[in-house]
């Protein structure tokens, strides 16, 4: 196998991912139809409960099916036709309108069409400048969220005290892992006296986002940093930019940051104490008997890596290979800096191809490798002696979540420990002597 292309998901994958997370957001991609795989990735295969494409029903995600004449003559007519057709059949709450690489090259921008259609249909039609030539899925997700929030009628209204709006939650699918994450964030913030009223995106409709108008605090996650910053400025509200709360210490730090910014330090310390008292007994034995000294290879979203790698290090799990699923060096540098601060010794790579990963993992195997954490796209890079593989991040085709299985927060730390323990334990049973 020599598949010399990076496994990083594309810009349009990210845009589609956002649309998947907002059930009444229609997505129109001005492009030939050769992007059929987008819906299949973000929707059908990765999310058992996707509403992007319902069998037997009109899809809320459509291409304009451009042909070359359209590229020469302009695609406006097809854009208008497609949006009107979706509007008549699906009745979405808003439209996101972007383009594929060919249209990006022609320089056509749909701002005018979007504005015209917004007036005609009396609902937001949000133009999104395509970045598919050089962007990756994190750009697609983040830019689409920023564009959407910018065009929605979210204006400053009187604040409801002690409310929080989360912007940039990496809602990758409507399964019980991310729903579990949402419940956990809600539980933790409730524990310090804050009520989460809006999460963008969170599997709820467009009009849910209007609730951002009244929140007292905005909490920004890395996946939507740009959107959160712009919204905070627009609303004149304090913005708390944090990392993802992953692992025990990561979650405790996150809670303290939020508590400090909202004046709830004492509540946070009390909550953290309770939570740790509940979690640690469950972990005390397995950290020593199963996790300590384990060597893990990871190929993952850089924003998740920034929190997950230190979280595992806390249990004695050493990340010996780290590939970041991004095209941008700046994100690689950010992760390097974070890991140095956390005193984790691993030099990350980024945007690797399958043969590159295979080589890297083969090298790791030679020196000892117990586990791989990555997305479905990299599973195939395992050659020969296969190790336990935990799918985490987008896309996730093989592991699905039908029951509560968060990986953020304190409960998420327990789920991660549970999952890793059982993967390793199963593997050790099936392959006696292969791992200690």
């Amino acid at each position, binding site marked *: 196998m020599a*598949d010399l292309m*990076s496994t990083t998901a594309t810009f349009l994958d990210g845009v589609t991912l956002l649309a998947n997370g907002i059930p009444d957001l229609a997505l129109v991609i001005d492009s030939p139809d050769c*992007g059929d795989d987008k819906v299949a990735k973000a929707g059908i295969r990765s999310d058992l409960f996707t509403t992007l494409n319902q069998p037997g*029903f009109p899809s809320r995600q459509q291409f304009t099916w451009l042909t070359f004449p359209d*590229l020469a003559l302009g695609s406006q007519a097809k854009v208008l036709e497609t949006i009107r057709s979706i509007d008549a059949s699906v009745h979405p709450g808003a439209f996101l309108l972007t383009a594929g690489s060919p249209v990006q090259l022609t320089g056509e921008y749909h701002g005018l069409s979007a504005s015209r259609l917004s007036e005609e249909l009396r609902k937001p039609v949000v133009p999104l400048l395509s970045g598919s030539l050089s962007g990756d899925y994190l750009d697609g997700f983040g830019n689409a969220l920023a564009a959407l929030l910018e065009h929605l009628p979210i204006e400053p209204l009187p604040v409801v005290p002690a409310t929080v709006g989360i912007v940039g939650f990496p809602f990758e699918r409507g399964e019980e892992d991310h729903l579990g994450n949402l419940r956990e964030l809600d539980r933790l913030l409730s524990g310090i006296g804050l009520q989460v009223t809006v999460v963008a995106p969170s599997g709820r409709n467009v009009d849910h986002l209007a609730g951002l108008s009244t929140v007292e605090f905005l909490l920004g996650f890395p996946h939507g940093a740009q959107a959160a910053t712009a919204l905070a400025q627009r609303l004149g509200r304090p913005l708390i930019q944090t990392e993802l709360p992953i692992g025990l210490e990561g979650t405790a730090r996150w809670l303290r940051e939020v508590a400090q910014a909202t004046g709830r330090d004492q509540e946070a310390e009390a909550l953290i104490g309770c939570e740790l008292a509940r979690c640690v007994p469950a972990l005390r034995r397995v950290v020593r008997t199963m996790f300590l000294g384990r060597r893990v290879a990871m190929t993952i979203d850089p924003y998740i890596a920034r929190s997950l790698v230190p979280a595992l290090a806390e249990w004695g799990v050493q990340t010996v290979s780290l590939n970041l699923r991004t095209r941008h060096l700046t994100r690689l540098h950010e992760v390097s800096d974070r890991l140095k601060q956390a005193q984790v010794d691993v030099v990350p790579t980024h945007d690797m191809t399958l043969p590159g990963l295979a080589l890297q993992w083969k090298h790791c195997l030679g020196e000892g490798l117990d586990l791989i954490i990555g997305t479905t796209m990299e599973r195939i890079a395992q050659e020969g002696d296969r190790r336990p593989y935990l799918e985490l991040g987008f896309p996730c*085709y093989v592991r699905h979540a039908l029951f509560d299985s968060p990986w953020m927060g304190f409960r998420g730390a327990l789920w991660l420990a549970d999952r890793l323990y059982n993967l390793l334990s199963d593997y050790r049973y099936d392959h006696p002597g292969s791992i200690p």
Partner: protein
Amino acid sequence: MNDQNQRPPVLPQGSQTGGVPPSSDSGQVDGRWHAPHKFSSWLAAQMQDQGAGLSVRVDFRPDGILAFSYQWKKAKVPVFLVVGRRGSKGEVTRFGTLFAPLPCAPEVEKRLLHHTATRLDQIFRGTPPTWLSRRSSPSLVVGWGPSFLQDYCSDLLVPGVTHWGSTLLQDAQFDEDRSLLLSFRGDASFDLRLYPSCEKTNKPWVGQYGPLVLVAPDSSIAAHPFVSYVSFVFSLLIPSGATLLPYDSSQQDWIPLMGDTRGEDTFLVGHFRTSEELYKAIFAAKAKIAVVGNLDRECSSALRWLAGATEDAIMDFWHIHTSREAYMSFRTTDISDTDVVTIDGEARTTELIRQVIDSPLDLLVVQGGCPSALMGETGGRSLDAALEGAQRTPHSFTVDVCLGENTDYRRFWDMLVQMDPAEEPLTVADRLNLVGFGHRQTPALSELLRLLGEAGLSDIHTFLPTFEAASIPGTRSARATVVYPSPHVVDAFSMARRHFGQAVVFPDAPWGIQGTRQWLDQVLRSMGRDGLPDHLWQAMVAARTPSQWAEWRGATAGLRVGFAASAHYFMQPDSHLRHGLPIAQVIQELGFGIDLVVVPPTDTQPRRIPKTTLERWGGSSPGAVRVVYGKHGETLHELLQRCEPVAFYSEWVGDQRLLMAGKEPFSVADLHMGLEGTVRNLRFLLQLSTLPFAQRYGRLAPSEVLHG
């Protein structure tokens, strides 16, 4: 320019064109051109009048192609001008312009294209200003003629010459006076005046409104977008390749009986765009293949999905999985913003080709994408450059865009079979080609091969939708070729038909017990043998039917299988056939009854299904086929709920409309050919018909989820 008073007289006028045909031939009636076929005879006369050593015949074909057949230096060379064509649903299936459909020397092709363009120019010279053109600024008035075709046709429209960067349309303004101002990114801009030639009609209208008949009517064209008029002029020879329309929201009231794939055994229902079919064939092949793409990330991502290089593909095309690792190699230039500026994709593609070319390949595919085409880059040039001085030259195949029509697929199969070095076929008496019976993971295929083996045939090569490189050399030496009788298989096979020798048969496919027997008989006879002896057949059946067969067969009594569609659908002659599967016959052979559920249109009562239609569905015996008519105003959900069958046919995976009504969907992809397949079909339909899940819980599917 929009002054109505300056509207020109009808085109073409005799005094202006130098020779008006008799009105009866010209198609000119009451000052309008109505019939393209009449126009063509006039045009032919024009062409003949001005012949210069060439003889030419002109035909206006029903598919909207103006065909010039040149006889030149003892060679016949056709040149086509594609005027345009619309499908039955109004979709534009093909646009084009001047091109030579058969390969000929580049000089000849260029000369003939130029000749045709010049002739057309001459014909239309002096017929202003039906097409009033203005280039740049200040205004330069040119006619539909030399300036237009000579200046634009060769640059705009000849494959391999066009540079998209300078011809991209920047702006188009259309007013109600039918004037169109087109501004291009280069220096050119010009106006067109458009005059449709006939009254409003419900018939496909592009063919009637082609450029050569755009003359002087008074009817409004407001209902027709200007793109429909002018795109034939500006389009490259890269037509829309869509063979399967996207889901039509207007059809949501009925169950699509042929639609999207189910992600399972897709060999029968996998109607993809032809370029996807091409890639499925290429990448599922048991051959050493390298793909080099001059592509951006989005294109590469889609291609790798088709190519089976990723888990994406494995999730959909399980049959690819087993052959992928050992055979595939995929490299891409990974175009980004920077590359658009530097435009060095061809050189980088050449370099990538050089990296793989010396490895032992069966096939090298060089793939271009839309961005590279927009930059004027072609895979052909990269390939030529890479092959210069190469130690070895593998079979190679270039696809410059993913939007290609059948031509890619045809070229591929042509090239594939040409791998066979044999000049003349030497028939091998016992060798049989099976075409279109599935891929290696289609369970029925291996079972059919075993049946044939028991009948004495073991030297069998299988093709389509995939192939094995090692089988290619034996293709032409087979005594007979048996083709699966479904349209898409036959269509694909026709592309390489000439390579398969003369003895080609299309027997009914081996569905059901009796169908399998008949198929075996016909295959044996095509091989010059007697039919299958009864004792051998009985032994085959006995070995393959389990002890519970009679019990299962008895349990089907009283069970029914449903089909929901409009009356119009059921009345189509082949509605009881799905992809070569006589579904009504197969279901009834298993003992099930059939309910045809006729979904009414939203505003009227459904049409009654005629007796002849019921007979086609096997309705001659009492109770075998029942018809359930929807009532006026009744929704699909209500109609389904009051229907008896649990198992309903639908091509949509997990069709929610059925599930919510307590029904269980199934499709062709769930059914299998052959004897073992028939046993599986019986068990499956029996289990499905008695499955309680949807009946108990289907209504709980939250309807708001469906539409967000």
